[in-house]
Each structure stands twice: as structure tokens, then as C-alpha cells.
């Protein structure tokens, strides 16, 4: 069981490789005879390809092939090319027909000896289309909203009601209706999607960029119609994903198809502008909140209606209303989800899908209601604190939100906040403070891990997980080491390759929860075997000592009450056949899934300075107080939360895809015009973890922390801007022109 609640801040095991440039990301891998693929993208959003003229391209030196619907290898498993049960299987565009469903859809690939030749070749492919009318996305779409077949998490209902909303609203002293708009966003991991594929007979190997090695392996095998054992997927380093590499998108097929076509290893790397469409996006939403409360601040009713956009060919629904169901003790509540179809690339999970846009709406509405009632926004939240999950009617496995509020408020100086908005001024700047609750559910899948205690006292750990940059590889070693009483550098890890035991995809903050539990359990199994070996061995100093009395410490097994009584793993193993002890454990949720509600919680506090004349917003201070069970590594965990909070800044103030509604084309598909925060946008930022012991949630005692950072930050900033300026903003991002408008 977890010994420390906040784990050692050890450096990443791959730190040296990352800072010296020796870390090989997928696009850095070389193969003899490697050739290069460059995609050709559609320039219309809806229609059919009439002609695809490759004459000029094929005249260039070095061109090996132009792959398109006219000559692409046919895929045996195309009947599986539909929207899957899980969020990660989406409909792909892999040159099996001549249909175009969105602008900037891949329609051909030029394969050439050098990258330069392929780029030039791609620029010379001439395409004509028969076009159809374009369905633009939100907010301009006038299409009929549809009810989605499901939400991405299978156990989330699409629509819910509890109590009697009408009655609740009638009983309210104060009511509020507000509509919130969030834009389409693109993940834009700094590493472009890359896939290097080669065939050896019917065996395919791919060095690729994926957040889910085993899901990717299965999906590729299924679409090719071949056994998954014939596909090997390797992701040694991943340059960020944020969801865009969680789904297996079209390039995963196009790369190996091209390798098959030309009979050589093909490297396909997306250009930055290709990452605005074919590799997913956060859906734009329009959300309407209704809130009713009594004069003394009890919520009486709430509704949260979400309209999102999805692609014309798929059914992903941004689940924005799910947190509203469980965050506050509100007796009467209804939530609905609908989508409209548009000629856009597939919408998909992006860091905190649903929670990020949904909690923006919820926590802004809560703030506005508190203001209406003239109650401090933090007090208002405390008044409606949910002791149990009001949606599932179950206790929480743990919930330390009160402590987060309290410690955050103290540390941030919340008591100094002016009662009135627009009351604090510093020169040209209006200064304001805002806060919001942040929350993220615990999502646990299935993972297998193998732990082997070697006769030299070191440990080998193998699990087919990937490390998105979050520190997974480092903390897996820490978890195994902790159980076995070793130091993490005595553990070597085999991961990042589908040849290792199958592990869950890294999305929905699942990795440490799931794979970390598998590692913990496998290590516990090994420890149990070692203890048994000791107490059954007449020659061991621990002979006949009760199992519970034995603990692992510093490479030894010893008696808890008399630490001198004990022996090292090496001497124990040596005497007992000199063979390693090994355990392989498949780990998944148990009864707790039915008996408890499990989420991480936190509070985000923000101070902004808004230039009254210029509308420029500077975030002068940000603090996140997070309770997420055991924290395995204080250093990497902090980076996760800070990174998430900066994503909150980005969503609140910077990021949006500008859509030309005439042709449904993104107008800013590059990092100059699609703004994400740079260093100078971030000042004083901090994250603090609250001690939280949770023995129910899972064997590792952890909750995910990849997404909780962004969730509450967006609304905390919007609320701080209101407090600074006295004006509410309902439409993200809150850019300069909105502030001076």
C-alpha cells in the first residue's frame, strides 16, 4: 500500500536524453532505404474528387508514387471504419473512395526519395472537385440539433434529470440564465504526428506518435484485416499529445499503406497545417445554463444544455454537462447533450474533453449567481458542497475539496478580495481576483504489468505503456520500487513498445490510475512470494515470522518490530534456487466502481490585471490547490498541473480556430496565427498538492492529474476578469477586442 502521500521529486529517467538531443522521437528514427511521404489535402469541404492529375508530379526526379483513391491498397477491414464505442476509434479517410467531407482532408500522398522532392511533388498535384453545399460549424450552423447515440464514457448518460426542475426554479428567490460559447480548438502538440512504417513480409512495424500503443496496434490491424500480432507499434518518446494522438487517425493507415505501395520504409510527418482537421479537435460548443437559488444561497435547480458540433461523418459528442450533474448538492437538475453535423474534421477528445468547456459554463454561472445574491463566491460554493455524489447517490472514495478551498484561499489572500467588482485599480490596470472549483473523474481501464525481482536484487518492470511527456516512465519505476523497498534506479523499465504486456491508452488521466495500479499489484505479488519464500525457509532469519510482520526495506526483507532480523533479497533468492521471482498482473476496477464515486478535486485562484484602455489582460498570479490521492512524484506532478493551468489560460484568453464559414476552411492553421501562450504570458504560477489518502480508489491510491489543471482555470480567469472590470464575458476566448468593445 502507498507509504508516502507525496512522493519524492526525483528527476525524470529520460531527462538526460531529452536535454542532450539524443532522445529519438518517431520522426527521428532512421531506416536503410527510408523514403518520404507528404500529404496532399483537399481544398473544398464537401464533394467528390473528379480528377486528380499527377502528370507534373510524376515528371519530377525522385518521385516513387502518388497514392490516392485511384491506386491505394484496398483495406480488408474497411467495414470496421466506423465510429467506435470508445473515444479513440473514429472514422478515417484512407483513400478508399473519392469523397471529401471537410476542408484540409488528406486526399493523396506523394512518396519520394527525399523530403524536398515529396514536398514539391505534392504542390504539383492538380485536383478538380464536384462540390456540394457546405455545412459550417457552430456558431453559424442552422442545422437541426441531433441527440448523440452516446457520450464518450460509456457509463455517462446522454441526458439526465433529477428532482423537479420546474418546481425548483419556482422556489428560487433568484434565477439566472446565461449562454456560453466555446470555440473549436486544435491540440497542437509541439511534435507533429509522425509515422515511420516498414513491412517485412506480412509483418508491419511502426515507429509512431501514439498515446495508446495497444489501441493503435489493434486499430491498424483491424483496418488492414490482419492479426494484431503482425503489427508492432513503438513510441519511445512522444512530443505531447493532449488527445490528438489518443485517437488512431488516418495517418496511422496512410503511412503503412504507402510503405506497402512502394515496398520501402516510408516516413510520413504531418505539416503543422495538416494538424488542423485530420487529427481531431475540441468541438465548439454553445451551452445554456439556468440556475436558481434561495436568498441565503442554496441552489434549488440547475439545467445545463449543451450543443456541440461534430463532423458530417462521425458522432463524437463533447460531454460538457457531466460535471454539472455531480459537483454541487442541487436537488433539481437536468442536463442535455445535442450535436449538429458540420463539414469539419472529426471532433475528438482534447485535454479534459467535456469538463473544460462544461466547467467553464458551470463555474461562471455559479460565480454570477453568487454575485447576484451578494455572497462571496467561495462561501456560495461551500454552502452547496456535495458531501456525496448527488448524481450517482454514492459516497466519494475521498474528497478533500474543502481543504483545497481553505488552503488556497489562505495562501492566495482571498480575504483581501474587494467585495465589489471594478473596485481595485493600479495605475492603468483594473485588478481582479477570481476562483473556481476544478474537478476530474477517475477513469480506470485495464493494464497488465510484469515485475521480476532478479537474483542481483534489481527489478525488471515491463508494461506496454507510453510516456506522453507526463513522466509515466519515471513514476512507474517509482511505484514498483516503493512496494519492494528499493530505490527507483534499481528498476529498469521496458515500455513504449507493443511487445510488452498490454497497457491502457493514455487519455482521460488514466495512466497512473490504471497502469500504475497494475505495476503496484504485480510488485505486491512479487513481494508476497518473496515473503513466503522467507517465512517458509528454515535457513532464513525470517523463518516462521508472520507475513504481516515482514516488510521490504533497502533491498531487504526484515521484521517490522526487529529490523535487524532479516536478510537481503539476494541472499534469500540465492539460497532458494537462485531464480528470479516474477509476477504478471492484469489490473482493472473492482467493486469500488459500483459503490463509490471517484474524482480528483481542487480549487484554482487567479489574479488578473486588465489595462482599461487597451483591453490587455495580464495574469499576475495563479494558484492551483489539488487533492488527487497519492502523488507519486512531486516534481513531475507539479509540471502536469502547471501545464494544465496554462492550458486554462490558453482556452480563456488565446486559442480559437477561425473558420471561414463560406468554405468551412480554418483560416489560421499555423502557430503564428493560432495563438497559444508563450513564456511571457505566464508569470507567478504555482500548484500545491493536498495530502489525500484513498485506499478505495485503486491499489496505487492515485487519481489522475493530467487534466484537472485546465478544468477550473478557464472559469477562474473569466471570473477574475469580471471582478476586475465589472463586465461578464460568455464567449471564449476573451480577447482584447471583446474587452474594449
Amino acid at each position, binding site marked *: 500500500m502507498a507509504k508516502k502521500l507525496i512522493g519524492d521529486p526525483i*528527476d525524470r*529517467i*529520460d531527462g*538526460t*536524453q*531529452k*536535454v*542532450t*538531443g*539524443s*532522445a*529519438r*522521437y518517431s*520522426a527521428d528514427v*532512421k531506416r536503410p*532505404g527510408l523514403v518520404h511521404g507528404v500529404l496532399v489535402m483537399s481544398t473544398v469541404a464537401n464533394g467528390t474528387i473528379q480528377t486528380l492529375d499527377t502528370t507534373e508530379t510524376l515528371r519530377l526526379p525522385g518521385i516513387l508514387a502518388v497514392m490516392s483513391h485511384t491506386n491505394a491498397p484496398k483495406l480488408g477491414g474497411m467495414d470496421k471504419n466506423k465510429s467506435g464505442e470508445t473515444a479513440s476509434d473514429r472514422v478515417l479517410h484512407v483513400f478508399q473512395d473519392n469523397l471529401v467531407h471537410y476542408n484540409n482532408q488528406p486526399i493523396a500522398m506523394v512518396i519520394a526519395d*527525399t*523530403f*524536398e522532392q515529396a514536398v514539391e511533388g505534392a504542390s504539383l498535384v492538380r485536383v478538380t472537385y464536384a462540390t456540394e453545399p457546405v455545412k459550417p460549424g457552430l456558431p453559424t450552423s442552422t442545422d437541426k440539433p441531433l441527440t448523440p447515440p452516446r457520450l464518450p464514457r460509456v457509463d455517462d448518460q446522454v441526458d439526465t434529470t433529477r428532482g423537479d426542475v420546474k418546481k425548483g426554479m419556482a422556489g428560487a428567490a433568484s434565477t439566472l440564465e446565461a449562454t456560453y460559447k466555446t470555440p473549436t480548438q486544435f491540440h497542437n*502538440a*509541439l*511534435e*507533429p504526428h509522425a509515422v515511420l512504417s516498414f513491412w*517485412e513480409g506480412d509483418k508491419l512495424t511502426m*515507429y509512431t506518435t501514439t498515446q495508446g500503443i495497444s489501441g493503435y496496434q489493434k486499430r491498424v490491424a483491424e483496418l488492414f484485416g490482419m492479426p494484431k500480432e503482425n503489427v508492432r507499434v*513503438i513510441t519511445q*518518446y*512522444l*512530443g*505531447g499529445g*493532449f488527445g490528438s494522438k489518443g485517437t488512431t487517425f488516418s495517418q496511422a493507415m496512410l503511412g503503412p499503406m504507402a510503405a506497402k505501395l512502394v515496398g520501402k520504409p516510408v516516413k510520413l*510527418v504531418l*505539416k*503543422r497545417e495538416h494538424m488542423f482537421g485530420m487529427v481531431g479537435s475540441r468541438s465548439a460548443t454553445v451551452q445554456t445554463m439556468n440556475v436558481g437559488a434561495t436568498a441565503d444561497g442554496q441552489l434549488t435547480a440547475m439545467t445545463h444544455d449543451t450543443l456541440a458540433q461534430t463532423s458530417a461523418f462521425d458522432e463524437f459528442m463533447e460531454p460538457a454537462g457531466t460535471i454539472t450533474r455531480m459537483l454541487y448538492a442541487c436537488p433539481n437538475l437536468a442536463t442535455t447533450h445535442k450535436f449538429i453535423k458540420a463539414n469539419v474534421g472529426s471532433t475528438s477528445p482534447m485535454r479534459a474533453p467535456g469538463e473544460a468547456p462544461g466547467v467553464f459554463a458551470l463555474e461562471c454561472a455559479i460565480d454570477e449567481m453568487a454575485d447576484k445574491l451578494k455572497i462571496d463566491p467561495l462561501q456560495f460554493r461551500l454552502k452547496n458542497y456535495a458531501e456525496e455524489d448527488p448524481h450517482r447517490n454514492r459516497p466519494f472514495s475521498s474528497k478533500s475539496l474543502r481543504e483545497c478551498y481553505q488552503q488556497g484561499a489562505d495562501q492566495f489572500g482571498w480575504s483581501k478580495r474587494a467585495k465589489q467588482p471594478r473596485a481595485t485599480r493600479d495605475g492603468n490596470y483594473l485588478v481582479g481576483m477570481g476562483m473556481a472549483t476544478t474537478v476530474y473523474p477517475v477513469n480506470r481501464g485495464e493494464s497488465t504489468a510484469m515485475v521480476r525481482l532478479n537474483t542481483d536484487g534489481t527489478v525488471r518492470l515491463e508494461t506496454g505503456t507510453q510516456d*506522453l*511527456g507526463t513522466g509515466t*516512465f519515471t513514476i512507474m*519505476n517509482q511505484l514498483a520500487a516503493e512496494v519492494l523497498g528499493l530505490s527507483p534506479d534499481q*528498476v*529498469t*523499465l*521496458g*515500455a*513504449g*513498445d507493443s511487445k510488452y504486456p498490454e497497457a491502457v491508452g493514455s487519455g482521460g488521466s488514466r495512466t497512473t490510475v490504471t497502469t500504475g495500479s497494475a505495476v503496484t499489484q504485480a510488485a505486491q505479488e512479487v513481494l508476497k512470494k518473496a515473503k513466503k519464500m522467507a517465512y517458509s525457509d528454515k535457513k532464513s532469519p525470517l523463518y516462521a515470522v508472520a507475513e504481516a510482520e515482514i516488510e521490504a526495506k533497502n533491498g531487504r526483507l526484515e521484521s517490522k518490530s526487529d529490523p535487524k532480523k532479516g536478510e537481503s533479497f539476494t541472499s534469500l533468492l540465492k539460497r532458494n534456487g537462485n531464480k528470479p521471482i516474477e509476477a504478471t498482473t492484469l489490473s482493472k476496477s473492482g467493486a469500488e466502481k459500483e459503490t463509490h464515486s471517484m474524482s480528483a478535486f481542487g480549487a484554482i485562484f487567479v489574479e488578473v490585471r486588465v489595462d482599461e484602455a487597451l483591453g490587455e489582460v495580464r495574469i499576475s498570479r495563479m494558484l492551483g490547490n489539488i487533492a488527487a490521492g497519492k502523488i507519486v512524484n512531486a516534481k*513531475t506532478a507539479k*509540471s502536469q498541473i*502547471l*501545464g494544465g*493551468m*496554462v492550458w486554462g489560460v490558453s482556452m480563456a484568453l488565446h486559442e480559437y480556430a477561425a473558420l471561414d464559414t463560406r468554405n468551412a476552411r480554418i483560416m489560421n492553421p*499555423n*502557430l*503564428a496565427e493560432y495563438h*497559444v*501562450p*508563450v*513564456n*511571457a504570458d*505566464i508569470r507567478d504560477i504555482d500548484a500545491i498538492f493536498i495530502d489525500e489518502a484513498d485506499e478505495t480508489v485503486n491499489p496505487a491510491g492515485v487519481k489522475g492529474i493530467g487534466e484537472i489543471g485546465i478544468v477550473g482555470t478557464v472559469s477562474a480567469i473569466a471570473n477574475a476578469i469580471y471582478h476586475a472590470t465589472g463586465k461578464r464575458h460568455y464567449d471564449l476566448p476573451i480577447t482584447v477586442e471583446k474587452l474594449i468593445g
Partner: protein
Amino acid sequence: MAEKDTYLIDGSNRRWFLKQSSALTGLLLAPPLVATSAQSTQRQPTVPPSGKRAITLRINKKTYKIDVEPRETLLDVLRERLDLTGTKKGCDHGQCGACTVHVDGRQSNACLMLAVMHQHQEITTIEGLAPSKSQLHPLQAAFVKHDGYQCGFCTPGQIMSGVAIIRQGHANSPDEIREWMSGNICRCAAYRGIVEAIGSVQKEGKTV
């Protein structure tokens, strides 16, 4: 597939590193990579293939003679021709800073430069920063210590920019560091760690 052909995560720092370097050696020997073989300064002058130019580049204190097309960027020559893949391509348009190298000491976006135009200048990439194989440059060590990264993809560029601004005297306060480092996007948003790492090295006053 032979184990040595792959790049596998294999263990704690040291063992992983060894494994990786041996994998790398294996690959460098494989045709048709030019890589180390192109370093030889003794190469006989030949007429380059049509459309190509024979050029000489000085990279990390080594001389490389290589035939390139005039349209090849310095970034692609480093990555695709010389197997110096530490320098990353995040955008290919001068917008992200992932490809930052030093050209005659100045931080420069290698994706915006044509290799043919930078002969006889001193080019330094992330691979050329550490004083030796077993020793990190102080800023590399500081990035590890302060967790100035997550995925590490922007990191080579961040470190090259960071070293340049320390040398140029633009790292005297957190705000100055933030301003001067704003040409390097970190989508993981490790900005706080980056500022702390650069600030700590600048304060120690070591020659970087």
C-alpha cells in the same frame, strides 16, 4: 527484428543510455545514411550530381562536406542528411523555436535557413553543447533539475535559446528571461521550470 535495430526504453538512466547509443551506432553504419562518413575532410573533390551543390558546413566543431540541393533547409540537412536529430521541427515556418541552433553564436531558426547559405559559419546544435559525453552543459543539467520540460520536444530549442540569452546578458530577471524566451513555444507549458532553470544558471555566474 533484431533488438539493436530498435530504440527501446530499457531501464534506468545508465543502461538505457548505453542501449541507445549502441542502437544508434548500428543505424549509422547502415546505408544510405551519410552521417559520420560525411565528416571526413579528405573527400576527393567531385562534381556534385545535377541540381546539387558541394558545400562545407562547420557543425559542432566538425567539418562536413556534403552535396545538397539549394532548397534544402539547414534543419532538414541536420536532421535528414547528418542524422543530427536533436534539433526538432515543430512548424517549419519560424513560428515555434523547436529548431533553434546557434549560427556564429546567434540563436537562429534552422527551418528558415538554407544550408547552402551558411557555409563556413560556426553552427552549434544541441548535440554540440555538452562539454563531453559524460558531462552535461550547466543549462542542460538545470533543465533536468528544475523540470523545465515535459515531453522534451521543445527542449533542445529552449536550451539553445537559453544559453544564447545568458551569454548575451538578457537573463537578468525572470521577466527579462520570459520576454527573451518567448520565441520558443512549449505546448506542455513548462514555462515556470524553464525560467527557473535559466535563472539559476545565470545566477551561478558560470561561463556557459
